[in-house]
């Protein structure tokens, strides 16, 4: 491809200069501007959660708990978990790229409910404020899982403020989910049949289904927790005959599907990026779409694998273990199909592709170690060790955050109308990949050797690997801070992007970069399947 095709004249009128002043942003109903509101806020939360992680890794350089008290350490990892799960990972791709791209990809002028979309951002911010209040008021030490009866009867922290924050942000997810589902059902452009939709749209659709079906259960669980803590309305209180394991069931009925809320959008991104940079139609389109739905469905049937040692019945354990293995089938199909897409493709390794390749490798390792912990007997050994910590960070950070970064670079020219500096982006991608592995691979070994999670001190034998891990974390910090700098730089100094700098397919690349306020001058008509790369000379 000719390098110059990436740049082009800036359009005179686009959504970014369609209005000026604070009101044009904070009262906007344009999905593209609302995506920006989310970009800025989730980036803030990402670095807040990252700060907590930095302090955790600093503490763990030495075996003695010398930097932080055990209480402060407990509060830090709880804050890290709550912020990263609910205020970064769950909203990350759907509320930013989903918001920006879904109407463009289905050929619509906006989402079905623009006002609801703006409302969901305000709801998110209010939930975030409660969480910040909880952090300022001394934080909580329950971990992100709020297990009862500790959280209801004993914990002396701002449990109520944190739970309220999570409860409120849940409604933001629900509103976004409803908006996306309705948009995909009712607003597709003429000719855009279900099996012509880009896989990114399928992924957003499946994610939205999970959001809509799982989040309310978390909401009611948190309500039950709150009334127990505040009014003493015991629901899980063992002294009344209540059952704390019931809380775990209800909590994980949401929180396991929540893992798929984080990873499904990432899979959608990777499908777009891999197909574009291999310049080839995605291999096995229909199977890819169905495996997204299958993962969303199976995701609802495996929550009990978090509770193998919580005293649930052994038969439940066996069933949950087998069902958990089942998730690996559609996941593996996706991995193989991405690889098959690369096969004989004209592969280019621009920064988005480097991040997408990181996703493939790291998600694979995270997924395979997931099979370890889904194994009933082995999990008894691995439960609550660093093995589990490493496993879910490979999925959440190695998988979901890598894909987020891939999306950020892939659609940056479309969103901002500017090109980012390619060389620095590649440096960032490689730094993140190396730093990530250095941080988390040692944790597999630590966990295998028996180091438990959630302690601020450990035996001396574990120090070397912990030092590796902390060193990796500092690389990771550099890798994540770099884009903050060069992307902001590119907003002002980057070259103007053409409408389709990657020579990609998809309706979003047919409109100027940045797109006009109304997206399309006239409603597009779709006559091709998605990823029509081969038809091109």
């Amino acid at each position, binding site marked *: 491809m000719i390098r110059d095709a990436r740049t082009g004249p800036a359009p005179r009128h686009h959504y970014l200069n369609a209005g000026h002043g604070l009101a044009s942003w904070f009262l906007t109903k344009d999905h593209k501007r609302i995506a920006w509101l989310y970009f800025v806020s989730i980036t803030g939360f990402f670095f807040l959660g990252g700060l907590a992680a930095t302090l955790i890794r600093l503490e763990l350089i030495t075996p003695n708990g010398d930097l932080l008290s055990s209480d402060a350490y407990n509060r830090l990892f709880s804050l890290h978990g709550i912020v990263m799960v609910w205020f970064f990972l769950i909203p990350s791709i759907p509320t930013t790229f989903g918001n920006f791209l879904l*109407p463009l990809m289905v050929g*619509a*002028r*906006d*989402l*079905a*409910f*623009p006002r*609801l979309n703006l409302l969901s951002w305000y709801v998110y911010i209010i939930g975030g404020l409660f969480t910040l209040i909880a952090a300022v008021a001394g934080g909580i030490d329950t971990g992100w899982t709020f297990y009862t009866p500790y959280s209801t009867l004993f914990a002396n922290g701002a449990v109520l403020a944190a739970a309220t924050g999570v409860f409120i942000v849940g409604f933001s997810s*629900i509103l976004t*989910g*409803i*908006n996306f*589902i*309705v*948009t995909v*059902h*009712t*607003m597709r452009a003429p000719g855009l049949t279900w099996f012509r939709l880009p896989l990114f749209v399928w992924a957003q659709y499946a994610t939205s289904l999970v959001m*809509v*079906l*799982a*989040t*309310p*259960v978390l*909401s*009611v*669980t948190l*309500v*039950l927790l709150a*009334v127990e803590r505040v*009014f*003493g*309305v*015991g*629901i899980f*209180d063992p*002294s*009344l*005959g*209540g*059952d704390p394991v*019931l809380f775990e069931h*209800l909590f994980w*009925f949401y929180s396991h599907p929540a893992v798929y809320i984080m990873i499904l959008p990432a899979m959608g991104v990777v499908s777009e990026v891999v197909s574009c940079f291999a310049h080839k139609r995605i291999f096995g389109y229909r199977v890819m779409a169905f495996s997204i739905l299958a993962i969303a469905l199976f995701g609802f049937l495996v929550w009990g694998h978090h509770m193998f040692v919580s005293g649930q019945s052994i038969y439940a354990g066996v069933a949950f273990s087998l069902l958990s293995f089942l998730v690996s089938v559609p996941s593996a199909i996706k991995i193989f199909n991405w690889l098959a897409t690369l096969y004989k493709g004209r592969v280019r390794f621009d920064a988005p592709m480097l991040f997408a390749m990181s996703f493939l490798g790291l998600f694979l390792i995270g997924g395979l170690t997931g099979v370890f912990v889904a194994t009933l007997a082995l999990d008894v050994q691995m439960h609550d060790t660093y093995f589990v910590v490493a496993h879910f960070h490979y999925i959440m950070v190695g998988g979901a955050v890598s894909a987020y970064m891939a999306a950020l670079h892939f659609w940056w020219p479309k969103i901002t109308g500017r090109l980012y500096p390619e060389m620095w982006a590649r440096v960032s991608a490689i730094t993140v990949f190396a730093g990530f592995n250095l941080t988390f691979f040692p944790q597999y070994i630590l966990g295998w050797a028996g180091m438990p999670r959630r302690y601020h001190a450990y035996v001396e034998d574990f120090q070397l690997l912990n030092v590796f891990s902390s060193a990796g974390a500092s690389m990771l910090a550099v890798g994540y801070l770099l884009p903050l700098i060069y992307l902001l730089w590119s907003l002002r100094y980057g070259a103007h992007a053409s409408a389709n700098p990657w020579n990609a397919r998809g309706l979003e690349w047919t409109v100027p970069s940045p797109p006009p306020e*109304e997206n399309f001058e006239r*409603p597009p008509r779709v006559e091709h399947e998605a990823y029509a790369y081969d038809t091109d000379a």
Partner: protein
Amino acid sequence: MTRTPEHTVIVAHQFENLEQQFDADLLGMWLFLVTEALLFSGAFLALAVYYHQYYDTFSAAARELHWLLAGANSVILLTSGLAVALAEQAADQGRRRAALLGLLATIALGLVFLAIKGYEYHSEYQAGLMPFLQQPFAYDGPNPHNAALFYNFYFVLTGLHAAHMIIGLAVLMVMAVLTWRWRDGARVARQVRIAGLYWAFVDIVWVLVYCSLYLVGR
């Protein structure tokens, strides 16, 4: 349904036509109701688990509740469901007065329901059946500890339902104002229909609440 001429109907800018907009609005409400059903389902599930564990204690405790008053309340609420359905039909046919009347009747019946519910709460408070907020728990049946769990569920579930009633009443009041103003008949008819769906959900949940708290074990 489009009685007003096409050019006076306002379609939101993101939609191609009114039909598409109505489809989207209706689907949105149905999805929202799915989330509401799942919200209640968590509490119902927990209740079912405890019924399984403490059946005798729970059914004895359930007999202390005012099942007749609550039964009367069920009749009142279902009647309000009829009223809102009639209002939907009237609005659809462009009969503004009848629609307004139906909505006002729904609101009135909803308020009567809440008043009776409030009276129930008051009498339970006086009988010492509120085992929280440091209230004395004067239940004299078997296993008072486990019975306290039942009363906790009773207050949580009926409270959650009452909260939904209040939201529903607020929505219906907005609908009554819109119907009274009657700016764009077709639009009002669609709005009333969507609001009516929410009210129907509140009715149906009450039937489940009533059966699972008042009638089980009777």
